[in-house]
Structure formats: C-alpha cells, structure tokens
C-alpha cells in the first residue's frame, strides 16, 4: 500500500495534525503571557468582536438598519429562544448578559475556524471552553446557594425525594460528581472536540485537494479527484459554519438549563 502510494505520490499531502492545536509561541515565550498562533487568533477575534459590536451598539438607533437588525436578531434569539423559553422572563432577565456573552463570544470564536488566514477556531484549545464552563459552574452554584441554600441544593440534587434510601449510596456520589465535574467537563469537551474535529476535517479535505490538484504527478487523475476533495472541503466549511452556530447555541442553552435547575421547582 505504502509502496504503491509512494510510487504514485510525489510527496505526502500536508495533513493536519494535533500539533496544529499546540503551536509554538510567537511572543513572550516561557512567560505566562506567551502568545502562540491560537492565542493570537483569539485576541484578534476578541478585538473584532468588541469593535464590531461596540460600534453597532454605539450607533444603535431606534429604527434599526440592516446590520443592527442582524445583531438585534442575535440578541432576540438568545433572549427569547434560549433564556426566556427555559427559565421565563422573571428569572431569566438577570442572566441575559451572561448568556449573551457566552453565545456571541463562542459563536465568533468558533467562526474563526473557517475564516481564511485564521483557519483555527479561537475555542480550539481546551482552556477557552473550560473557562466558559467554569464560569457557568460558578454561576449555577451561586444561584443555587442564593435560591435554595447550599444544603438545600445538594439535598435536592443528590437525595431526591421518592427514592428508596439504599439507592442514595449509588445516586448521591454520581449526582455530586455531575454537579461539580461532569457538567463543566461535558460543556468543555463538547465544544473543544467539535472545534478540533472541525478543523481536522476541513484541513484534511483541503490538504488532499491541494495535493491532488497541484502536487500529484498524475494530473489526469489528480485534477478530478482533487476537485472532488475541494468540493468536499467546501461543503464541510459550510457545515463548520453551521456547527459554529450550533455549538454556541448548545453551550448557551445548556448553561441556561444548569442555572435554571438551581432554582426550586414550582
């Protein structure tokens, strides 16, 4: 197999590796402020987010223009379809800024994965999703302590009513683990893994397209095959745009659900 490929291929296609997610430092190497490619993308994305949304908010008018309409659609979406739908207006109002921050930031950071030149989601290191997830963790614990008291929350979650007591032996540790570990871990890994796999998929298809069209010795077979890979890459890029939105939406909606579960049922 490798011999056959070796004969056919002039060089190996430049496939993405997990090293893409662990780039070398560019600035301040060795300090806690080391900046590598992904950090740089993250900083640029943040600046873009702040400038674009900042200018939009600064120029916001009573009668919205097209762009303001788009931004307002995003705000309305987070407010009506995420927060108010899950926890209602009375409870939800207080968490609107938080969930909006999460949604907009994650969406823009995810989109960096398909922006030419960046080609890497700003959420594609484990810490960025983790930081968001920890924020959510802290928030739903604070909410729980405020609404139910610390013990009330742990009792409701780990020792639910109507369960025979021996089950608690099994249930309580699992539930506690869920509250402190599984929720933030699932938020983190879901987002991070989606961004990693998205990058690997798109980069792989485009690497093959590049390889077959340009570097392959056999142009007759290379160009059609390469075009097919390119088409595949195009479709996957569009799919990644969808995933960027979807993951931001999922993160926002799960965060809201977790916070909402800290309230007593009524």
């Amino acid at each position: 197999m490798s011999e056959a490929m070796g004969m056919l291929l002039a060089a190996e296609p430049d496939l993405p590796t997990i090293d893409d997610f662990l780039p070398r430092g560019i600035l301040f190497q060795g300090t806690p402020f080391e900046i590598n490619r992904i950090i740089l993308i993250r900083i640029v994305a943040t600046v873009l987010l702040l400038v674009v949304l900042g200018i939009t908010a600064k120029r916001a008018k009573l009668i919205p223009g097209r762009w303001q309409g788009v931004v307002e659609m995003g705000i309305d979406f987070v407010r009506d379809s995420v927060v108010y739908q899950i926890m209602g207006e009375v409870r939800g109002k207080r968490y609107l800024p938080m969930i909006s921050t999460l949604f907009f930031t994650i969406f823009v950071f995810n989109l960096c994965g398909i922006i030419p030149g960046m080609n890497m989601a700003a959420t594609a290191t484990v810490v960025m999703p983790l930081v968001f997830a920890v924020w959510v963790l802290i928030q739903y614990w604070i909410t729980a302590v405020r609404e139910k008291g610390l013990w009330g929350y742990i009792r409701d979650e780990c020792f639910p009513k109507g369960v025979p007591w021996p089950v608690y032996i099994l249930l309580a540790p699992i539930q506690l683990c869920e509250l402190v570990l599984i929720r933030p871990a699932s938020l983190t890994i879901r987002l991070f893994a989606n961004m990693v796999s998205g990058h690997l998929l798109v980069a792989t298809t485009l690497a093959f397209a590049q390889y077959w069209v340009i570097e392959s010795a056999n142009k007759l077979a290379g160009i059609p095959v390469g075009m097919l890979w390119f088409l595949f890459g195009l479709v996957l890029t569009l799919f990644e745009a969808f995933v960027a939105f979807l993951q931001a939406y999922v993160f926002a909606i799960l965060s809201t659900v977790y916070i909402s579960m800290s309230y007593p049922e009524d």
Partner: protein
Amino acid sequence: MVTLAETDGIALFIPKTYDIVWSLIILVIVAVFFYKFFMPKFNAIFDERAAKIEGNIAKAEAAKKDADEAKRKYEAQLSTARVEASKIRDDARAEASHIIADARSRAESDAAQITANAQRSIESQQQQAMVSLKGEVGALATALAGKILGAKLESDDVQSSMIDKMIDELDTSDKK
C-alpha cells in the same frame, strides 16, 4: 500516520498556563463589554422603542377618542338644531295662521261695519226721501185731483177724507 504519533493526544487536554491567562483575560474583557456596555445599550434601545410604540398607540387612541367625542358632540348639536328648526317652522306656521285668521276676522268685521253703515245711510236717505215725497205727493195729488175732479167733488170734507185715506194707504205700503 506518523504525524499524529508525534504528540500524544492527551496533551491537547492539559491546560497551559499562558492559555489559562489569556483565556481569563479575554473572558473578563468580553464579559465586561457585554455587561457594562452592549446589553445595557441595546436594552435601552429596546425599552425606548417599546415606549415609543406604546406612546404612539396611546396617542392614536387619544386622537380617536377625541374624534369620537367631537363626532358625538357634532351629531348632538345637529339633532338639537334639527329639532329647533322644526319647532321654529311649526311656530312660524302657527303664527302665520294666527295672523291670517286675525286679518280675516278684522276684515269681516270691517266689512260688516261698512255694510251696516251703508245700510243705515241708505235707510235714512230713504226715510228723508219718503218724508219729502209724502209732502209733495200729497200736495201734488190734491192739486191734481182737484183739477181733475174740480166740480165733481164739492164737499171739502169728502175731499180731505179721500186725501187722508190715500196717504194712509201710501204709508202702509211704505212700511211694508
């Protein structure tokens, strides 16, 4: 796949210090931006818009109420005016018939007066004429009879009684 083996995949999940630092810095910046500027700004816009729409609806309702009020007042005035007009018309009609009746009765009484006066003057003139005629007719008849009869009527007594009888007859015929 030689390339994938170069780095252990688990390395992806081990947080780097600089990554934590930058992620936190960025989270704080973004959160402050959304909490302090972006959301308040848009909430203000949304509230203002809602207030404006509500204000316009209220204004439109007030305007409609005013218009309804004005219409109602106008219609009330119109119906009052109609009633008044018909009353005035009725009054005028009554007055007119009154005036006509007055005028007629006055004219009738005037006419009766005039007729009566005429009657009276005719009667008095007739009376006078009769009186003077009586005198003249007597004398005339006597003279005429004397001339015609002359000799035949010697006695004056007969003569005078004849005359008296004649006048009496004339009187009675006159009175009829």
